[in-house]
């Protein structure tokens, strides 16, 4: 079994700016194994969201490769990405049109603000069924049935099928965004600050759901957040970004217990901590 689902090599992303370019991502490399969760943390403007978009080619990288393995065993129906497999995978940077779209079946994304990705005039089931019809996976009644299954998967009841986005709470809208992303059975889910807009009690619900889905579906996650505690909770490995570069990458336990890079240490030291509470039973 191939040990890598995604391999990003020397990724560089420049944004055009007055009098030149701004380098948002300055040579970043990492891998994500099947079923693994890689956390990406850093402060605003460090380039973490740009990486998410560059992996999917929503912004085109200036340089580097984004290799997606096509034949890794997984719960999702992998299928052929319809491109020449170089052995280490297809380089998404070289694809466009239908061949790139085919790869989007393998890699899906969940955004911070679910409302912005949900058409307010569409009912919930149509929103969830859209990727199914778009990729030709199901149509008509079958799509509605599958949408109902997906909504059940993310904890939305059957009564939610015919409701509109504004009738859902923030946490429920994020569940809807998850159901949409999971509709095509991706192997990798990129989550860009998926719980940052949610209150802690709802945030805990969505984090638990993500952990549960990951286990049940064998999903790999690229989990992006500014919140070190949230990333620690979910990630197997963590990469710390500063000014467009990964300054430290280690397994979660090690990174939080023995941060090596001064920036990682500064970040961890700056987090305001709650004193011990008897009620939670959790040590500080």
């Amino acid at each position, binding site marked *: 079994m191939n040990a890598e689902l995604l391999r990003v090599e020397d990724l560089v992303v420049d944004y055009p700016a007055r009098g030149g370019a701004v380098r948002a991502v300055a040579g970043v490399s990492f891998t994500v194994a099947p079923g693994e969760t890689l956390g990406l943390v850093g*402060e*605003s403007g460090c380039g973490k969201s740009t990486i998410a978009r560059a992996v999917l080619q929503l912004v085109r990288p200036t340089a580097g490769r984004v290799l997606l393995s096509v034949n890794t065993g997984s719960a999702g129906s992998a299928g052929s990405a319809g491109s020449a497999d170089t052995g280490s995978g297809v380089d998404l940077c070289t694809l466009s049109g239908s061949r790139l779209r085919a790869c989007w079946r393998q890699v899906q994304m969940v955004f911070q603000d679910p409302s912005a990705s949900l058409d307010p005039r569409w009912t919930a089931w149509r929103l969830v069924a859209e990727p199914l019809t778009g990729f030709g996976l199901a149509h008509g009644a079958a799509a509605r049935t599958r949408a109902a299954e997906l909504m059940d998967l993310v904890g939305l009841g059957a009564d939610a099928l015919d409701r509109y986005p504004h009738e859902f*709470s923030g*946490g429920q809208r994020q569940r809807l965004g998850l159901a949409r992303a999971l509709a095509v059975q991706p192997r990798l889910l990129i989550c860009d600050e998926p719980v940052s807009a949610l*209150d*802690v*009690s*709802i*945030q*805990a*619900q969505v*984090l*638990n759901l993500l*952990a*549960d889905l990951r286990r049940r579906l064998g999903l790999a996650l690229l989990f992006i957040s*500014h*919140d*070190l*505690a*949230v990333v*620690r*909770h979910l990630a197997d490995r963590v990469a710390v970004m500063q000014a467009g570069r990964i300054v430290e990458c280690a397994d*979660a*336990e090690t990174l*939080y217990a023995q941060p090596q890079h001064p920036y990682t240490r*500064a*970040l*961890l*030291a*700056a*987090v*305001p*901590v*709650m*004193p*011990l*509470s*008897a*009620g*939670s*039973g*959790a*040590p*500080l």
Partner: protein
Amino acid sequence: MTDQPLLAVHDLVAGFRTDAGFVAAVDGVSFDLAAGAALGVVGESGCGKSALAYSIARLLPAAGRIQSGAVRFAGVDLATADERVLGTVRGRRLAMVFQDPMSSLNPYRRVGGLIAEPLRRHLGLGRTAAWRRAVELLTQVGIPDPEQRARRHPHELSGGQRQRVLIALALSCDPHLLIADEPTTALDVTVQRQVLDLIAAERGRRGLALILISHNLGVVAGMCDRVAVMYAGRMVESAPTAALFRDPRHPYTRALFAAVPRLGGARGQALAAIPGQPPTLTADRRGCAFAPRCPHAIDRCRTEAPAERVVADGHRLRCHVDLPTGTPP
């Protein structure tokens, strides 16, 4: 206590006109704040913590009003005071810092001019003296190169610097009370740390009283002597900070603490999510608002709102149930 508190909020009910009639965002809140003391107010979106801050300063938007109750501050009841009196209190003895500094700083004005304005208005300083004092204040809040920065416009500063400017503006007339509504929520964690340190230092130096509104339990724990937890417009529990975190009594407080992922918590375990949703403001208000989500609720919780009772020294609770110390949420 014979000392008159600096601020005494009594049974405050404030809210908004809506199509469905008046809804109370703040529903019977009472507390005292001594001079120089710091109270943290925590809770989730819509719990009324910002509405409480805005009602105390009488800055509710046009659709909002104070329905009943009193806000005694420095000998004046702000709840009923007229605009002329409010104008002499706000910005002078009572100052506020908001989440988004960009929306509270006039983008057309230079930073120095913005800070000089209350100095001229409240303290009667002349143009040159006010400008000089503004530069001093910018120095105090740690703005590098303050002479130059005073001539800049707000958009030319970073988010952290804008929040420092807002703090300089709030402190300009030496207030007795600073109300800070999510002052660091829009900031990165390292900048947040700097701004919190600044507020703490200024508080210590000036003997300023502080009401710090935040959704972040860690932020209030490090900054305040006392913490109050709000849920659906009510203060459900308040206690000295150490006591609240050591021995939370309200089921909601416990659930809230347990739902937060922590840097030192167990990895990989499910978080203790609170089932359901917070109630809407228009929901049935007869019982305890947390009862539908509460694992310890009894019949009485659904019919009768719990009155506030004192369960330990300075530890106030609105709950019918007595949970033994250390019970899981």
